[in-house]
């Protein structure tokens, strides 16, 4: 945990959506910090609000409540001009390589788009030089400069997405499940490349995924989300060695490990399914499925308590 300055600080971020059946609590009172040059892994199952959180931090859909500070400056509610200005520092990599690339544009046009919007390069020659430099950085053969995305496979399309994100030389990148849609071997190539970029360009990542083995590999600190709330946050090794929150334990236990010793092992199963985020009940969101549920759990919201250095848990059973 390098003690660099804090780059991104999020305080009590809330994001609610109005639906015909009530108020959907996508993100509910989430606070965290990301230090420069480190990677915060955000992990959780579908419907836990991790993607909404990522987009709210970038200011793409403004938060209902709470603040997001970047380098100390509050960027929660920005005008279109300020938002455009801050794109030079903050970028995003998307999940689906087939839907996040415009099929009607060539590879070079896609990569050059952020540069054109920010009008960085006057002459076309400089623009092309920068695009070529980016393509070489992400390992894309220059022969593909004028081809259309539908001729390329998932791995190469994701490299285009990464090149586009690096175009403006950002400091902070939110990666929304960048490798989930890829095959295992391609996934490993992309993960290695992203970690190389972090070292060379001193990038800061907010890495969102549902795959726990990937998040452990790439992140320095991991935050586990359940139904819009943070249930546990800790350095990655610490989290895997001492998982404390019941949901984190169940999550880690459920991952199939490719080793002989795990053959036929019955994981500790959770009962039932994720409850609805619309008008959620008071108290801990995990209460309905938690094996250790007590009356206290269902009364008040659980705050994050520090049970060991940098290891926070939101559960009344622990950290009294």
């Amino acid at each position: 945990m390098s003690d660099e300055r804090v780059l991104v600080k999020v305080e009590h971020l809330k994001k609610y959506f109005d639906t015909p059946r009530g108020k959907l609590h996508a993100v509910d009172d989430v606070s965290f910090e990301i230090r420069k040059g480190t990677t915060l892994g955000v992990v959780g199952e579908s419907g836990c609000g991790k993607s909404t959180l990522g987009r709210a931090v970038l200011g793409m859909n403004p938060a209902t409540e709470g603040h997001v500070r970047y380098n100390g400056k509050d960027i929660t509610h920005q005008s279109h001009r300020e938002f455009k200005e801050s794109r030079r520092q903050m970028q995003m990599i998307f999940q689906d390589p087939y839907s996040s690339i415009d099929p009607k544009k060539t590879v070079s046009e896609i990569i050059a788009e952020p540069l054109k919007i920010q009008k960085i390069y006057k002459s076309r020659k400089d623009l092309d030089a920068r695009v070529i430099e980016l393509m070489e950085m992400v390992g894309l053969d220059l022969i593909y400069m004028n081809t259309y995305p539908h001729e390329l496979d998932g791995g190469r399309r994701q490299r285009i997405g990464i090149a586009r994100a690096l175009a403006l030389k950002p400091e902070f990148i939110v990666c929304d499940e960048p490798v989930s849609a890829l095959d295992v071997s391609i996934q490993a190539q992309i993960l290695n490349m992203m970690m190389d970029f972090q070292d060379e360009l001193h990038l800061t990542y907010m890495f969102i995924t549902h795959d726990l083995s990937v998040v452990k590999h790439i992140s320095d600190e991991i935050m586990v989300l359940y139904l819009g709330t943070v249930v546990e946050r800790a350095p990655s090794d610490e989290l895997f060695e001492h998982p404390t929150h019941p949901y984190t334990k169940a999550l880690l236990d459920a991952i199939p490990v490719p080793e002989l010793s795990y053959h036929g092992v019955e994981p500790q199963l959770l009962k039932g399914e994720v409850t609805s985020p619309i008008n959620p009940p008071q108290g801990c969101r995990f209460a309905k499925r938690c094996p250790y549920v007590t009356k206290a759990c269902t009364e008040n919201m659980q705050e994050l308590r520090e049970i060991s250095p940098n290891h926070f848990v939101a559960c009344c059973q622990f950290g009294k």
Partner: protein
Amino acid sequence: MNVQTMKKRGQFAEVWGRLRKNKLAMISLSVLLLICMAAIFADLIANYNNIVIKQNGAERLMAPCAQHWFGTDEFGRDIFARIIHGARMALLMGFGATIISVAAGLILACVASYFGGVVDMVIMRVMDVLNSVPALVISLAICSGLGAGTWQLIVALSVAGIPIHTRMIRSNALGVMGNEYIEAAKSQGASTASVIFSHMVPNIASIIIIQITSTVATNILMGATLSFIGLGVKPPRPEWGLMLSSGTDYMLKNPHMVIFPGIAIILTALSVNTFGDCLRDAFDPKLKGKA
């Protein structure tokens, strides 16, 4: 530094490549071009004033013969010349009305799908109301309001087409808006206009082109129908529907007055329809795949 890159084959070049291989597409395209040629060079083939309009009683109701390939009508005017000039009117109605209604539909759909919320709801409710009036009834109302005439007819056809196009383009635009590359463009701080025009329109272009070809045929038929019931083009201007309506009285003894204009309409509409189908297959070939 010349970078050896694949030739920049635009999507339209690819589509044209597939079209060229399709025999049916080439036939229908050549028929269509023939009709366009006829429309453009109509004045050269038959002078408008002295052949197309001038009445000459002597040669009244002649059957098709060497001098008049398609025979003459009740005022002795050469039907072949009138059909050639009629082609100009048919294409004007077909393409003119379609372009207007598709353009209006595109603008309304883009505005509705991009802003969404109240704007979308209002536009859609207006379209629902327009849609609850059968297309021909809309045209009847407009023709009775604006009176008969060429541009009135085009306005009637366009307004009748707007609800369908708006609804169709909007559903496709919403489909495109759901993609992440739109969100990616917004996340770069791209302006509203650039998101719509540089990202959304190219992606719905193929659907719009397919829609244009299918509507052109419908408008040609509708235009002829309106002229047939006397609400479209005013005589003496040559128009296929009008020729058919005046031909009904002499149909029994001189069927040629009814046959040739009918064939002209069918040929035009068929070639446009066929070309439109081939175009749709060329745009997304996988739709044609085997079951």
